[in-house]
């Protein structure tokens, strides 16, 4: 990714907003890899991610005048990408029934810290990515928004259409599901001292 907020990218954004295609090309080159990776993490297939990346940039190009230069460009880009990907998933009804469960229903537990440490120690990044792919869409999307795009809870709530108070619950549940996928059992997600 480029350097959001730096004088260089700010200048390129200003020029792109004024209709300079060279500047737009510059922005695209800087930010396309990050947005592609974002889409790749959020969507089920590589083809979907490619299509979505192009569509996101087409949207961004059309909406460039709506961008507030006081905010980081990358945050705005991620927001557009998040909305686009989530719309895409929602349209395809990939969200599973499980995800419509009551969000209040999250166990307040204290899992075994050593067991969790061991799990983290043993797993590689690639294994984590594969496990992420197995998660339901909302769980995966929540983790991507938070730990890849570094979005705030407010932004995540906005993107996923849940109340802000439940963002933590969504994230924790997503972590539990990820651990289950990594471990192949629910031991860490449900176990532990109360």
């Amino acid at each position, binding site marked *: 990714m480029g350097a959001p907020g730096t004088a260089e990218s700010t200048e390129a954004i200003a020029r792109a907003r004024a209709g300079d*295609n060279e500047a*737009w090309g510059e922005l695209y080159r800087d930010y396309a890899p990050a947005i592609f990776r974002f889409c790749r993490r959020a969507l089920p297939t590589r083809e979907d991610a490619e299509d979505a*990346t192009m569509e996101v940039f087409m949207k961004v*190009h059309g909406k460039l005048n709506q961008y507030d230069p006081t905010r980081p460009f990358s945050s705005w880009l991620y927001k557009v990408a998040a909305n686009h990907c989530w719309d895409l998933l929602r349209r395809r009804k990939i969200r599973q029934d499980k995800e419509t469960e009551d969000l209040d229903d999250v166990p307040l537990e204290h899992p075994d810290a050593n067991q969790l440490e061991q799990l983290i120690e043993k797993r590689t990044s690639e294994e984590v990515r594969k496990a*992420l792919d197995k998660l339901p869409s909302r769980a995966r999307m929540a983790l991507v928004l938070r730990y890849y795009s570094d979005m705030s809870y407010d932004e995540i709530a906005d993107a996923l259409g849940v109340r802000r108070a439940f963002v*933590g619950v969504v994230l924790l549940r997503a*972590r539990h599901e990820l651990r289950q996928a990594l471990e192949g059992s629910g031991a860490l997600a449900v176990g532990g001292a109360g």
Partner: protein
Amino acid sequence: MTPPQGSAQQHLDEMTLLLYLERQLDRERAAEVSSHMQECGDCKTLSRALERESRLLTRAMLEEEEPLPARLASFQQAARRSMQWIWMVTFGLAATGIYALYTSYVEPVQNRLHDAGFGGTNLLGLVIFQGAFWKGWQSMVSLVEILALLVVGGMAAVLFRRWFRRGTLAALLMAGMCGALMMPGNAAAIETRKGESIEITKSETIKGDVLLTGHRIVIDGTVDGDVYAFGQDIEVNGHITGDLLTAAETVRVSGQIDGNIRAFVNTLLVPGNVGRNVMAWAETLNVDSNGKVGRSLTSFCQTLGVDGRVGGDVVAFNQSTRITGTVDGGVQTKGELMTIKATAQITGPVKFEGEMEPRVEDGAKLAAGPVSFTKHHADSRMESKSGYYVWRLLWSSAFILYGLVLIWLMPKFAGDCVTSAENAGVSIGLGVLVGISGFFAALLACVTVVGLPLGIVGFMLWLVMLFSAQIVVGGLIGRWILGRTEDTWGRVGRMALGMAIIGVIVPVLHYVHILDMLFRLGAMIWGFGAIALTLYRRLQKTSGAVVPPPMVA
């Protein structure tokens, strides 16, 4: 979420720890948690583990295990801008090509058909069902209305694009436009009758158009409008004030039809009167000795017999043409055999193009002089060599342009089609199966009232697939030569190369009788099957998309 935890014995729950780590707790609660962790080793360890988990997640997601695909690397506004001149040249060429095709080939045919009584201005209307079926079409055929329709389509595309993927959108738009264009304005008001045997009795009068579908259809009464009849045996003994559009095995018109007949039949017999024109695709067409056609007769038949009277011209593309009656206009035929009997009377000039000289019996009255005969050789195309090559060049250019648009609209789908085509056996098998069954399914759907629009749209899509088939084969040939690519322009280049090679192969093959036709047929079946296979795979993927498939690293 959780009550305050004051002692080391009562551990903090995971939710609280996560919110603490992510700085989502208010200051007071955060201070409590911080102080608890000073005393509680377990909670501190868990907090550290959660933090490590967050870092692992971020690292795993940020790691760049896949490079940016070439397709994306080449996609940017600046690049698109620099390609604008190519589009301008492309569309300029396309416009020139279309104009050349129109003035060289379409307009003369159109003029000829116009002379034969088909006064429409639209090629689609002329070629398909102009006249009888498309009363509504006549009124909406103006260029302004078509442009308006296109604008509406474009606006719909812009408005609804966020709900569709590009491929789906293109397909839907195409189907929608075809449907809108094909839908006759007054079709909704049409009266329909369905059954094994349908009879409109002598005493019965139907006001308005009627659609009849049945095994046997007999019209003894009067229909004050057009008749669309689909069945096995159709007999018109009564009176139709409008046109008759029919698809059947045998049609016999003994009564009176004030308008036109458009027929797709096995046998059409006209012992009665037709006020205007007859156009038929049939095995046998016969205007009996008592039969009369008010204006022209256009036939695409195996055998045409004119024993009665034709008030205008006869334009025929038949295997065999026999005239024993009267033709008040000229006769222009192409075929193998032409016979003019002694009793024949023809007012206008007679032209025949065929392999054998026409047989004209003594006594035949040819007012405009003897038959002008052009001997048709199997390789007669050699005579107009340059025209043939210009025609081939135009076709190849048109296909390349069409392919370019398709690849640009659906790059991934186009690539998948070529990949499917690599599986030659399955593609060809599927091409034969779906090509034939798709055609007949669309045809059958047309026969039923409910399925008529669906059938027509299906048929149009079938045609689109058929036309796209060669492009797939072109893309495959290009891929064989230049290798695989994910880049859109790379795909266009490979397709263009492949189409250019096909464009060279076909003229070479055409020196050998029907070999070029077989080659093209084979290419069409192959490509058609590849498209069908890709569609099938896509549908399977969509229905199985509930659970995301594992990532391909």
